[in-house]
Structure formats: C-alpha cells, structure tokens
C-alpha cells in the first residue's frame, strides 16, 4: 500500500539514500545530492549530444543549445559589455545549474520523489555566498585596495559621505542574504502552494463525495494547472534573476565606484 503524506511540507524532507559515515562526518548520499547529480548529468549530456556534430545550419538540438548559450551570453554582454567576456562560463554555470535544479523539482515521479534542491537554504545560501565571495576576490585581484571604492559612489557631497558609506557597506553585506533568500523563498513558497491546492482535491472528494468530485474537477483542477504553469515560469525567472544579479555584482567588482 503506498504511504503518502498529506501535509505540504513533507516534500522538502532530505532523505539519506545511501549511508556513508566517515569518522564523525555524515557524508551520506541524500536525495538532494541525487538531484544535483541528475541536474549536472542532464546539462553535460544535453550539450554533449547537441554539439556532437555541429553544422553551420543547426539542427533542432543544436539550435536549442545555441539559444541557451546565446541567452546567457546576451545577459553578460548587456550588463558587463566587453569586460564580461571571461566570465560568461561562470554565469552560464550558475544560470544552468539553478534553472535545471528548479525544473527538476517540477517533474513528478522521478526516482527519490520530485525534490527541488534549490528549495533548501543550504543550497541557495551556498550559491549566494559563493557568488558574493567570488565578486570580492575578483574585485580585490583586479583593483587591489581600490576595490574599497565600491562603497564610495561618485558625485556625493562631502558632508553626507560618511553616512552614505555606512549605508553602502550594509547594503553590500546584505547581497548574499537577499540573493539566497530570493531563490529559496520563491521555490519553497511555490511548491508549498502547489501541494496545498493539490491537497484540496482528495479532501473535496472524500468530504463531499460526488458533488465534491465535480467541484474539484471544475474549480480546483484548472487552478492547479495554472499554478503549475506559473511555477515553471518562476523556475526560469528565478534562474534569470540570479544570473543577472551575479552580473551586476560582477560589474561592481570590475568597475568599483562607478555608480
């Protein structure tokens, strides 16, 4: 008998699929790790297949790969102009990983349950902190101590400069927080809403019998389909926003103080 959970938060439980304890550390392979591996395998496999025999006039799969790459390269070129060219692989990796991780959470019946890795703060927080630290390292490497100019916007009168610097420092430190929280909260909220509305259908059918089934089919089902479509859109949108913000922060690192 299939045991299903009826509360909306059960889908986020991290389950150990393969126990592995090394000394004091718990290095078990969890379903979160499984979906990350699935995502990476999908990206690498898709691009390997699509670009196996490249033609000048691309076929369907090669077209898709080119559109994907061109989209990310377009973002970097828009925000960073020519200085951003070395960083296109980085932004491409960030965008692709987040996008595929979000989308994999929308596919039901995958092995291990439909699990969204980016719906955990641990994962999104790591991505955000990584981006933040990378920006600092690149800024200090390229500009030395002139990187501190990022806190001193140009064209500010001297009498409020100290106040503006304080505000800029706090706003700079809140970047990893907002980056990670935005992705996490969007994924978490979307999936909770999906499960709550999906839970209405069995509740209606069990509670009201035939009339309940009719109400469920006419009212709840279209709503559920629309919310699922919205969630797919949000999956793509959040990856796009993360990538664009990474580009904007990179711009700060490459040209500090140019507000």
């Amino acid at each position: 008998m299939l045991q299903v959970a009826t509360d909306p938060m059960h889908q986020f439980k991290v389950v150990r699929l393969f126990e592995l304890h090394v000394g004091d550390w718990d290095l078990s392979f969890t379903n979160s790790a499984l979906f990350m591996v699935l995502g990476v395998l999908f990206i690498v496999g898709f691009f390997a297949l699509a670009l196996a025999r490249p033609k000048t006039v691309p076929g369907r799969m090669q077209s898709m790969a080119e559109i994907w790459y061109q989209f990310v390269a377009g973002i970097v070129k828009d925000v960073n102009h020519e200085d951003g060219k070395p960083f296109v692989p980085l932004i491409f990796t960030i965008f692709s990983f987040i996008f595929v991780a979000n989308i994999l959470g929308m596919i039901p019946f995958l092995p291990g349950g439909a699990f969204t890795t980016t719906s955990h703060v641990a994962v999104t927080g790591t991505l955000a902190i990584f981006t933040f630290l990378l920006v600092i390292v690149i800024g200090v490497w390229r500009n030395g101590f002139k990187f501190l100019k990022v806190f001193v916007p140009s064209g500010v009168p001297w009498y409020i400069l100290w106040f503006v610097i304080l505000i800029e420092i706090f706003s700079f430190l809140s970047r990893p927080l907002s980056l990670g929280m935005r992705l996490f909260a969007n994924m978490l909220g979307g999936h909770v809403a999906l499960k709550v509305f999906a839970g209405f259908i069995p509740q209606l059918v069990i509670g009201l019998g035939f009339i309940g089934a009719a109400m469920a089919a006419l009212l709840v089902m279209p709503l559920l389909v629309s919310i699922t479509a919205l969630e797919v859109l949000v999956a793509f949108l959040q990856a796009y926003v993360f990538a664009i913000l990474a580009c904007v922060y990179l711009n700060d690192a490459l040209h500090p103080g140019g507000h």
Partner: protein
Amino acid sequence: MENGMNLIAAGLACVAMAGAGIGVGTIFGNYLQAAIRNPSAAQQQFGNLIFGFAVTEALGIFGLVIALILIFAPPGVAG
C-alpha cells in the same frame, strides 16, 4: 505554556505582501505606459522589466519566509 501568538504573528507578517503588490503594479504600469508611447523601444526593455519585477517580488516573499519561520519554528515558544 503554549499559546497561538506565533500564528497571529505569522498572519501579521503577511501584511508585507501589500507593499510587494503595490511595487509590482507600479513597475508593470510604468512599463505599459512607456510602451504605448514608444512601442519600438519597448521590446529592448523587457529584460529590465522582468528583472525589476523579480527583485520587487522578492521583498514580499521575504515576508512569507518570516511567516513560515513563525509557524514552523517559532522562537521562544515551546513549539
């Protein structure tokens, strides 16, 4: 002692969505206004529109996260 104050607090945290709603409406309204005046330049700014929408929406969703924290892991109460 267990009281339901954390649920009331969670409900209050949802007031944050009012601000987010106003912000998102402002952004899209301004975009539509400008797009009707200058339709040929509207397509170029679509990326900025989506970016501004997502950043504004995030602030409303931060309120949702506070509400979820208050429901599922309320600090201070035995719960």
